């Protein structure tokens, strides 16, 4: 039988995982890697489950996901497993806008991507983004500015850029 603590954790995973998965996907651009990032992050959350504030667990899990994403990128020089072709004409799930958004996000530097996703998908304030990523407020502002500028070039139809 699962303990009450474990039952609350399972409930937390059910509630928090959809947004965590989408956040991870926007950041890494790969659904399989997103699942792995979230699974690994939630396992880490479980280790601290009895000690952390359950009300802040989602924020903590999000922070772990993003840190784990950076760590994963740093290990890229090592042999990695892949089950996807690096090029895809049209994935089954894709619609045009999603494709464009994810492709555009992929052109951003990792930190810019994280900031933009946290600000405009997760709807965190600049202070919350800074806290989540462990960076200064100035870094958040500059990363957001650069990231949005790049996205504007890529996503806003020509003619609307300077409106």
């Amino acid at each position, binding site marked *: 039988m699962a303990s009450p603590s474990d039952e609350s954790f*399972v409930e937390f995973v059910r509630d928090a995982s959809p947004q965590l998965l989408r956040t991870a996907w926007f950041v890494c651009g790969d659904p399989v890697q997103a699942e792995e990032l979230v699974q690994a992050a939630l*396992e880490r959350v479980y280790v601290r489950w009895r000690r952390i504030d359950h009300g802040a667990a989602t924020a903590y899990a999000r922070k772990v996901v993003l840190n784990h994403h950076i760590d994963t990128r740093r290990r890229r020089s090592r*042999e990695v497993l892949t089950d996807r072709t690096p090029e895809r004409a049209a994935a089954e799930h894709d619609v045009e*806008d999603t494709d464009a958004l994810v492709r555009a996000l992929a052109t951003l530097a990792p930190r810019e991507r994280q900031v933009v996703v946290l600000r405009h998908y997760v709807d965190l304030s600049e202070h919350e983004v800074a806290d989540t990523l462990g960076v200064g407020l100035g870094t958040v502002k500059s990363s957001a500015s650069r990231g949005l500028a790049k996205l504007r070039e890529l996503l806003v139809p020509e003619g609307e850029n300077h409106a």
Partner: protein
Amino acid sequence: MPDEIGTLFHQASTPTMSVDPYAVLAGGRRRRQRRRLVAVAGTAAATLVLGVGAWTALSDSTGDEQTLPAATPSASVSLPEAVAEVSLGVIPQTDRTQPLVAAVAVDEDSGRLGFALRTEDGAALASRSVFVGRTERARFATLVPGVTAAVLPAGVTAAVPVWARGQTPQGSAATAMPDGRVLVVWWTDGSEKDTFYDVIWTEGDEVLSSHAASLLAIDRDDARFFLAPNGGVIGYLAPPGEDEVVGGGKANIIDQGVVESFPAVWADSPSGSGGTYAVFLPKVEDVELVVTGDAEIRDQTVHDFGEEVGLVVLADVDGSRESVTEVRFTDPEMGPTGGPAAAE
């Protein structure tokens, strides 16, 4: 603009993704237990336990309360019962002088499968579980750098591994699993760190890959290119008509670039200087491959696979591997363009 971006995020149609809460729970428990073990054991012993813990992940089912075995640091660890095992012989890069055994377990519920490597006398060398939930027909994992195993469907008649930068397997071994599927393990000399990219196999007359796409094969004089009709290209070369290809062959995906909305990918042959290049393009006109230095295109042919697949250009180039730097072509709708250099 920020509001527009927010709208795009929230309207985005995301792929199907999920995590199993009970799998997370089980993984968290293992992680917690490993922390405790690491706290009490020495570094070397703890590393061994990590391997055992990872292996246990495979034998655990998900969704039920699980009791982890009390793993004890030991120089000789008995692995849980595996679905299949195969003897590999001596693998150079593992720095072992005695034959090794690869064992595999599959957890169909969680999508994880795992491989363990041990010596014939039972000493564990490494084990790992890997999440490969998107690969339906085949599952593969790199156990330690240079040692990769795949579980392939029953009925497979031949299989080849593909590394992204063309590493060549030094040896292979295969065995049938109790349910009829086939376990294949390939290993290299470990001299080149490379990304394990794909498994290509045959079932009857059909050529398949772990990317879940049937492949088209183009036979040339000394090579066979396999091309995935879902928009991807996997360049793989093997002597035409060769039935027994387990552990053979080689593929080099030299480069890839996205030109507008479609992929342009080329792969070359493993035949030393020069080689055969395949470039996947949409319906285009006036295809021109750009070569560097003294390289020369000896022959060029175009294969048109219809709308679904597009156009494939094959060329024999006399020169170094990197001698083809660009492909230029005219798109009837977009006009002259090129890639991948032009896309950057």
